């Protein structure tokens, strides 16, 4: 992820509700895995390892955010553990990460399909972003128009 991508993610996180946050989390995980795969392809061993470690941390966060009141959490936990194991194996061997990428991408798409009523963002006091423009107390987008002829003769 380059700096620009990170900035975009930061902005999105600031505005995200629960569902959007989950989708962002999974999206970040998919991007990280793809970067690890790319590094492996170009024989950048250290970079690949770092990316896999980051992906493992992201999966750990996914596990930590499971609510075990719901039975479905147990199913997800089993799957996360399985992919956790496969990523650890990938650290030792130069295996492909295609399976992992495919799974988390599919999971993201599945959650994206779930109908959900938009809530307010989880972060308090964050900037509100409107179509890429930002309003705050120091930065108001105003336009001063002078010498307007309104078409009427006084």
């Amino acid at each position: 992820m380059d700096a620009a991508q990170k900035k975009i993610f930061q902005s999105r996180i600031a505005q995200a509700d629960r569902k959007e946050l989950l989708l962002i989390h999974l999206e970040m995980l998919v991007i990280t895995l793809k970067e690890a795969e790319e590094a492996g392809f170009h024989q950048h061993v250290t970079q690949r390892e770092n990316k896999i470690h980051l992906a493992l941390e992201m999966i750990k966060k996914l596990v930590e955010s499971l609510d075990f009141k719901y039975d479905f959490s147990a199913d997800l936990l089993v799957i996360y553990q399985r992919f956790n194991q496969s990523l650890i194996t990938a650290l030792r061997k130069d295996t492909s990460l295609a399976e992992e990428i495919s799974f988390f991408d599919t999971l993201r798409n599945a959650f994206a399909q779930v109908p959900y009523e938009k809530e307010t963002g989880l972060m308090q006091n964050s900037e509100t972003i409107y179509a890429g423009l930002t309003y705050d107390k120091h930065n108001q987008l105003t336009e001063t128009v002078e010498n307007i002829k309104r078409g009427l003769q006084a």
Partner: protein
Amino acid sequence: MDKSRREATKRKGIIMKINHNMPALRALRQLNKSETLLTDSLFKLSSGNRINRSSDDAAGLAIAHKLRLQLNGLSQSGNNAWDGISLIQTGEGALNEVHAILQRMRELSVQAANGTYIEEDRANINMEIEQLRDELNRLSKSIDFNGVKILDGELDLMGIFSDKTKMELLSIHESVEPNKFKMKITEIPTKSKISGGAVDLTQTMNQDGSFSVNGVTISYQNGDLKRDVFAKLQKQADFIGVTVEMDAGAISLTKRFYGDKELKISNGLAGSLEQLGLADGTNTGKNVKIDLLEGFAPGSTVKPSGDAFTIEGPNGFELRLKLKAGAALNDEVSLELLKEGPAMLQIGANYGHTMQVRIPNVSAEGLGMKDIFVGAQEDALDALARIEDAISLVSKIRSKLGAYQNRLEYTVANIDTSSLNMTEAHSRIMHIDMAQEMTEYTKQNVIQQAATALLAQANQKPQEILQLLR
């Protein structure tokens, strides 16, 4: 709403339609569709099979079924090949013993062929050779594999004679193929025989003297009973393979075996033989003579040996036969060699994938050792040649068994490789990719459970996610 219904509504008042709730029906349809996909995915995960019924993939199921049949066939053919190896190893182990026996017989023949031994010594050596020959016969008849005798010719081509009272088949070389043969007996074999005139064995010899039979000297003294001299003659002659018996009041000497081995009796002292009704003389028996009529390749020859004969031809063709008591001069005898007999191993999954294993008769008769005798020096030399031929034959048989075993081992390796590849192909068609199916299952589960799935997972804190953006 059409006019008649509007009119009806006006008459009845407001009607609450509760029969069709389209949004709910649409949602239910999606739910059912999702439920079906989820059930299908769960079925595949629990069975491990991508194809559980023909509707999943009809063509794939058909191919997988054929592969499964082939796999089962290969598995069994692998077992068959191993059984074949076991059969060959059993035979090879027994032939190792046969080799050891023949080696010992050879040693004894070499010993008996030495001129420093007397007939009594050779008689003792001959006794051991006879015991070894009996053991050879016992081995060939007793060694079996799962009830099949493997060394007595049961695993060789079956031969049927037009008249089985005239001839018998001793052994067939491996190069001989099933065919029909015809032969004519042009000489009946005889044993060398000398008969004397009438003699009264109750009388005594009237002078000291001696005579010899094939070089073996029998001495007597004046006053010895003729019966005792006759007994001495019998014993000494027996050592050298000559049977002495009384035949209608006259002494007759007969060589034990058929063939053109000379029988010679001569006086040591003039008049000695005459006292027993015998006289100086020589007789030579005859070997069998056979004319080859049909079925034999040009250039085939007959090598007689007493009442047995070996037909040799090009490309290693060799048949050993023997005349029986019912044979008569000018008899024509047919022999049909059938393909039945050898073990046919099914070493492949399909029809025609077979291998034939032929093991000839290695009994004493099959090896030409039935009438082996070392009582006389000349016979010992003859026996030596025959034993060496037998050793050479057994070596060839063992080499052939070794070649069979090598071939079967390669077959087993090939079957294992084919099975592996076929199992892989079968798995590719039939079995699910667990990771892929788990992904699909999870996706369907999330869609199915929707809000619950979201509640179960969507509990992240923004700060934690931001930390991951380092």
